[in-house]
């Protein structure tokens, strides 16, 4: 608008243009100042919230017996015994209470609607997340859970990308938001299958990774070919220009002999030797032929005598004479068809995405390790029911696991859980395998009780000195680091997002209730017992 004003005025009165411009600039400056003042004022108006004199379990293993936490602007501004409540802040009496970071379920199904199709790597967990599932979220908050990772669930295969969600209130009536999208590539080995189908599943998954590698190779080849082609094209154009110049002086029949000169002919000359190879390539490309045709056709318009359709065949079979050959050499290389699936899988191969492989049986876990080895993947095993049987292999490969529900009866099981052991975590610890604990990624309601599950998983009794809070650290500081969110959540520390849970007592005692939960500094839950009394 200002610019428009400048333009029109300048147009009407070119004489006063300099003056006006100055005036407009000052106007803009004024409006900026006003805006800044408004923002600053808003910040002043936003009262800090202070939880005073509470026991604080920081999430990184430390306990502050009596300290305060200052929450401002959605973040933790100060924490500790020395933290002082700012002037005009909202105070919550924390004496006798315990404050912890919000718990994190690193493998959840909370808020997940439906499942991804079997083996569709392009599915994204955030597309299926119901951020309005307030009743379910409330139940989770009531048990102290504020962050969940949700995978792209499907059948056996590469199922898409998982994401991390924060149970944050608003905007509108929503109660959850994406905290980190594309958090991992989700692969399921379909352990609850017959041995034959599991074999096929593994072969299919391996193929997907191989195709992605091949896809990249063909893209790289294309780039190389394209470069060469462009160079040659340029060369030829120059030559033709030169020819035109020459033609003024020289005779016309010299031209054909010139055409014979361009030497390197990769396709035609190798034909007889590598027939089989060529054919395989052609087979692979057949799927994308329509796209190829589209691109090739479009490109051929710029070429003098291009013939998009059936180029390959012509290249192979048609030796129709020198002129034809020449056209083939200057054919633009075919760009490999875009593969959305391979693009996603390549992110995993490039270490941009960790790969989460759900595998329960020992054989599947070993297959997962082999897959990781072959394609150099950063993998984590989800489920890992029989991990204790292959703990040494996991330790050697430095692959960590995410355990699901610890309490389970294997007596009547003939599924992937048939060798379930409540001592899995204990044996993995002994073998030096790193493990995380979760709700198991299947049951949306189980996410609430990931705290109990963690308590059950711990190899040692909670009363052992020094280990009292390890079940909680796993679900907070360890979990956020595991999800690469350690600078945002999982700890009660300055600068972190204010995801805090105020417990009436010891969080490990089922009789303790969650009184308040803050997510991103906002009050996301207040116990019904307290809701009436204000705060």
């Amino acid at each position, binding site marked *: 608008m200002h610019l428009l004003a400048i333009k029109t005025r300048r147009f009407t009165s070119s004489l006063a243009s300099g003056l006006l411009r100055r005036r407009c600039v000052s106007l803009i400056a004024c409006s900026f100042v006003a805006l800044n003042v408004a923002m600053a004022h808003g910040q002043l108006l936003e009262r800090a919230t202070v939880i005073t004199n509470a026991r604080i379990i920081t999430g990184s293993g430390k306990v502050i017996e009596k300290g305060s936490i200052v929450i401002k602007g959605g973040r933790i501004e100060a924490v500790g015994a020395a933290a002082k409540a700012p002037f005009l802040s909202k105070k919550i009496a924390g004496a006798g209470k315990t404050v912890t970071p919000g718990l994190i379920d690193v493998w959840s199904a909370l808020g997940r609607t439906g499942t991804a199709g079997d083996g569709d790597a392009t599915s994204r967990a955030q597309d299926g997340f119901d951020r309005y599932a307030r009743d379910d979220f409330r*139940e989770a908050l009531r*048990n102290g859970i504020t962050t969940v990772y949700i995978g792209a669930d499907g059948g056996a295969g590469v199922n898409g990308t998982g994401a991390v969600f924060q149970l944050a209130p608003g905007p509108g009536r929503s109660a959850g938001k994406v905290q980190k999208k594309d958090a991992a590539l989700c692969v399921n080995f379909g352990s609850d299958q017959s041995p034959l189908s599991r074999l096929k599943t593994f072969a299919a998954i391996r193929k997907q990774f191989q195709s992605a590698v091949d896809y990249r190779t063909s893209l790289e080849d294309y780039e190389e070919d394209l470069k060469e082609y462009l160079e040659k094209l340029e060369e030829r154009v120059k030559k033709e220009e030169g020819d035109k110049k020459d033609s003024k002086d020289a005779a016309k029949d010299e031209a054909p002999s010139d055409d014979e000169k361009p030497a390197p002919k990769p396709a035609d000359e190798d034909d007889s030797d590598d027939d089989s190879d060529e054919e395989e390539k052609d087979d692979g490309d057949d799927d994308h032929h329509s796209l190829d045709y589209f691109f090739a056709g479009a490109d051929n318009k710029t070429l003098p005598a291009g013939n998009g359709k059936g180029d390959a065949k012509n290249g192979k079979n048609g030796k129709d004479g020198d002129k034809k050959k020449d056209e083939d050499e200057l054919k633009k290389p075919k760009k490999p068809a875009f593969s959305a699936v391979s693009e996603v899988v390549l992110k995993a191969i490039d270490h941009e995405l960790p790969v989460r492989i759900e595998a329960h049986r020992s054989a599947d876990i070993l297959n997962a390790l082999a897959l990781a080895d072959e394609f150099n993947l950063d993998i984590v095993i989800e489920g890992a029911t029989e991990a204790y049987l292959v703990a040494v292999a996991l330790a050697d490969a430095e692959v960590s696991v995410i355990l699901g*529900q*610890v*309490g*389970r*009866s*294997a*007596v*009547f099981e003939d599924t992937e859980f048939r060798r379930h052991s*409540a001592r899995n975590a204990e044996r993995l610890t002994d073998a030096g395998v790193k493990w995380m604990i979760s*709700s198991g990624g299947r*049951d949306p*309601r*189980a996410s*609430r*009780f990931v705290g*109990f*599950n963690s*308590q*059950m998983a*711990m190899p*040692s*009794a*909670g*009363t*052992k000195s020094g280990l009292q809070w390890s*079940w909680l650290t796993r679900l907070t500081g360890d979990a956020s680091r595991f999800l690469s969110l350690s600078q945002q959540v999982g700890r009660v520390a300055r600068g972190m997002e204010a995801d805090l849970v105020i417990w009436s007592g010891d969080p*490990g*005692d*089922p*009789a303790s*209730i969650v009184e308040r939960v803050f997510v991103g500094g906002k009050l996301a839950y207040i116990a019904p017992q307290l809701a009436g009394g204000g705060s």
Partner: protein
Amino acid sequence: MPFLHRTSHMLLAVAVIAGALSGAVLAQHSQHAPKAIVVDRYVTPDGTISDKRIITLSNGKIAALLPHAEIADKTGVAYYSGAVACPGLIDVRSSMGAYGNTVESAFSVDPSVSAIDSFDPDHRDFRRAVESGITAALIAPSPTNLVAGACAVVKTGGASTGRAGSVLRDDGPLVFGFGPRTWRYDRAPTSRIGAMAMLRSVLGEAKSGSQHARLQSLASGKLDAMLYCSDAMDVGTALRSVGKLAAHTSIIHTSDVYDLTEELAGTKATMIVGPYSFSMSQRTLSMAGVLASAGIDVALAGQMPTRGGHSLRQTAALAVRYGMDSAKARQAITINAAKAAGVSDRVGAIRPGMDADLVIFSGDPLRMDSRVLAVYIDGIRVYSADQHLTMSAGGQR
């Protein structure tokens, strides 16, 4: 770290002389049969955790509870520092060691069925139960008949037999089944109304002495009843018909009886709730607390081995998280369960005269991070977490 002092030879001799039936076993495994157990705290009969420390044992029974200072001779004393002693847990809805169909489907009134007949005392379930702190279980015939038969109450380890499971009571509560599984198309009753009519006539016969002995003793108030009600609406009917006759009544399958809370508060019936899983709704998980708050005796069930050994304590923890008083929850997995099974004179509380069936937990049994450190049945240590050691609670794994 718990450690055990070896029983002195003198004490051994005393044990042998004093022991009548279990004396031989005590002698055989003397080092596992302490004369006293010292713990930091213990679960009292009212469900609270008190700091009385010494539990003296004699003849497989609890002899006395003493303050800490009163122990002079430290031989034959098991010390568990920081630990909590709890009465052996009791699962009142179990099929431990009893596999297959425990009911005949031909007759809908079959009081002669005894669950004890399908009991395998050497089953590995008992070993798992012991590791989880469960020392007794009630095994019921499948409640698919109107009158389904008599329950058995078993211990998961036995000093007297040396086998995994031992029988505490073979004539436990008589089971009555109310629900769609009872009324069927291929035999009477075929409907809810038909079932009630049939039950009235059966109970009438029992009162007049023309029915099976078990039904007669129930009708004369000498036998307990366990009523399986899959719908809340059947609970009232069951209580008015069977409940008013039986010596003690417990009602099972009651995850959703909100509307009956007032009605139940006036009866002495025990409500058996659970097992609770992580998948259950807030409403279901709140039921135990609602019933207990209304003054109704609640027993919690773990349903081992269909569910794991963790299930009983998990049920209690979930009930507490959803509003049940902690003391009542501890009672619900010990003394109230014993009452429902009709064995509260023998087990379910740490009190002089009771069987020395004890679980030594690292902390409050309601906490899911508490671990079972040791288990005693009839005063004999049958499990120790340190040594993964078992005695009579054996069975192949």
